[in-house]
């Protein structure tokens, strides 16, 4: 683990969010793969393993909940930490994420520090 870079899959339809999050994670030394929706993310996940998935909920083509459910069906994603990005601190959304199989959540808006702190909890 020490030599190998930690890999993350970031799924968000908002380009600015993708850039901000990946910039922060790259800066901390993580390797980040980006996808714009659930379908793209799932395609990537079928061929590649990562150490962490961070996904938005509301996305076109395939939303975050469906993506999580599909990911959990893949043998190599059975135990992979998956964090959701939720716009508001709504317990309903959090619960839906959990039911789908998410590990935890990151509440938007967030600053780079709290993002890294949260990410480190599951690595």
């Amino acid at each position, binding site marked *: 683990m020490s030599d190998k870079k930690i890999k993350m899959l970031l799924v968000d339809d908002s380009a600015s969010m993708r850039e901000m999050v990946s910039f922060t994670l790259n800066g901390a030394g993580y390797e980040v793969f980006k996808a714009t929706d659930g379908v793209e993310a799932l395609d990537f996940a079928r061929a590649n393993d990562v150490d962490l998935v961070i996904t938005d909920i509301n996305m076109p083509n395939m939303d975050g909940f469906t993506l999580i459910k599909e990911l959990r069906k893949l043998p190599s994603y059975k135990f992979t*930490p*998956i964090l959701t990005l939720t716009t508001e601190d709504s317990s309903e959304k959090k619960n839906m994420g*959990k039911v789908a199989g998410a590990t935890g959540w990151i509440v938007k808006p967030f600053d780079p520090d709290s993002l890294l702190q949260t990410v480190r909890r*599951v690595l």
Partner: protein
Amino acid sequence: MAVNLDMSQFHEIFFEESREGLEAMESGLLNLNVGVPDPEVVNIVFRAAHSIKGAAGTFGFTNISRFTHVLESILDEVRSRKRGVTQELVDVLLQSVDGLRYMLDCAKAGAQVDENRIAAIQESLENLPVEQQPKPAGWQIHFIPRPHLLQTGNDPYRLFRELKALGNLFITPDFSRLPGIDKKEFDPENCYLGWDLLLQSDAGIEQIREIFAWVEGDCDLDINLSGERRQLVERRRRRDDESADALLESGRGQEQASIRVNIDKIDTLINLMGELVISQSILNHAVTDHDHDHDQTGRLKEIVELLEKNTWELQEQAMRIRMQSIDFTFQRLPRLVRDLCRSLGKQADLEISGGTTEVDKTVLEKINDPLVHLIRNAVDHGIETPGERKAGGKAESGLVEISAAQEGGNIIIKIKDDGAGLDTGKILAKAREKGLITGAEELSMSQIHNLIFLPGFSTVSKVSDVSGRGVGMDVVKRNINDLGGSIELVSEQGKGSAFTIKLPLTLAIMDGQLIRVGKEILIVPVLAIVESTQVKKQLLSAVAGKTEVYRFRDEYIPLMRLDNVYGLSSDLKDITDGLLIIVETGQQRMGLLADEILSQQQVVIKSLEANFQQVSGLAGATVLGDGTVAMIIDVPGLIRHCKGITAAHTAGNTALLPGIHT
């Protein structure tokens, strides 16, 4: 009518029982966490003190009873939470255990107790400041994940890591929900464990809840102030009532299943067993010599074979009575490491494994000092100071591991540390300075390391009060060799050292190689034999006139003509008709010249000392199947003697071992 009872008949049991009590107290005290003592552990320590006090009073050891009373009162205050557990308290309590042990030893030996020593300890006991039980400075967390928890990508380990960042975390796993591994319902992807966590921290409950936020609903979670620990433990106990009862039941069963027996009785039994085995082989011999054709003989042979099997089994079981688990020795070591670390300003953990391995009581007693010495060395010379370790990129606290395992008829003990390792440069310099090597030799790494086993070697220029007080590694090695064992060393500079000790499980029987010299049968312990070889004249040469050496592989080893050594007459017309048995103890090898090599067999060792007198060069004797007595060669003794002869020759003295006549 008054009963006239002689109390002294119970003293032996009292001493034995008190010794066990003290050991329980000691290990309990070492496990006592400062600030947050486990009530169970406190209870164990208290009960042990209480029993000793009561029994000592009954048997008339009033000084022991009086002293223990003071100790017991303090423990009672700890038990009833009137007194908190501080480092100072643990230290003084450990001193008291030492004091009690000393008083018991005196009582056993009928010696006078140095009252000043006891009074000093009693004074520090009485002057211990009463620290109030600290306010619940922490949280007791009861955490039982639902089986599917891991499948959400969460991991208890990561939660504990988060908690640990808040303070000191003590983790107790709860295995009660674990299904049998053979059961169908066991799913390796599920989490069946639960945990009782004690977090010593100023953190507020919100901070802890935050850590568990992602697993809320995926677990049972109870967070309480740690003052409520007792209730929690009790609640847990109620839940586990059934299994706890079963455990207690088996505990009681064990207690009833053991009785104390005087060691003399066991030795007599084992001795008689030895005689029986000998009679058995004489019988075997007699039957084998019989006419084969006879029907009757065939039947008789079957019976004798059965009897032989039973006899060996019986002997093995009899031997096992003398076997004790090596824990008897191991359990004193944590205290040793703790005390050493405190006096040296170092930090080290001791990890013990394989403590249940059983070994003969005599071996156990004799191995104690070498083990203590090796552990001392590991902490004193091996483990670096926390500062040095940090600078070297290691954890500040060192690790010393000791393990035991059985391998055939031997016990293997390994002692390993992650300290500095041996400094080959220093060793070489020292060996040159002491004249142990000339400095011209090309030495391999392992040969350099093995220099520390040479007599008169000690690398520490400053003699600390811990190790290096005259008793060197040579003594450790000799003690182990004398038990028929060996010690090996592997060390890597900067990484640490590891010693591997191999010892026979018992000293009463061994695998012996029978050899013949003239009319005499001698026995060489199989463990000591490297190989046997035909003598080739071109490899033989004489040094200093009389001592013969033989080129074996790449080294010259001394050759011993056993007929000369033991005053026998050999049949050999020419040395090349004989066979050379290469034996070894530790790193030293020697060739023994015999007329013939016979069979190998397990032999019962009879002490010459007990039956006749000690004879140098001989480890004992045994009776063979045909009833003849055969002497067992003491290989370490012979190698030592061989060196003596070499020295004596130089001085013009040709005295050999006294001849034996049987």
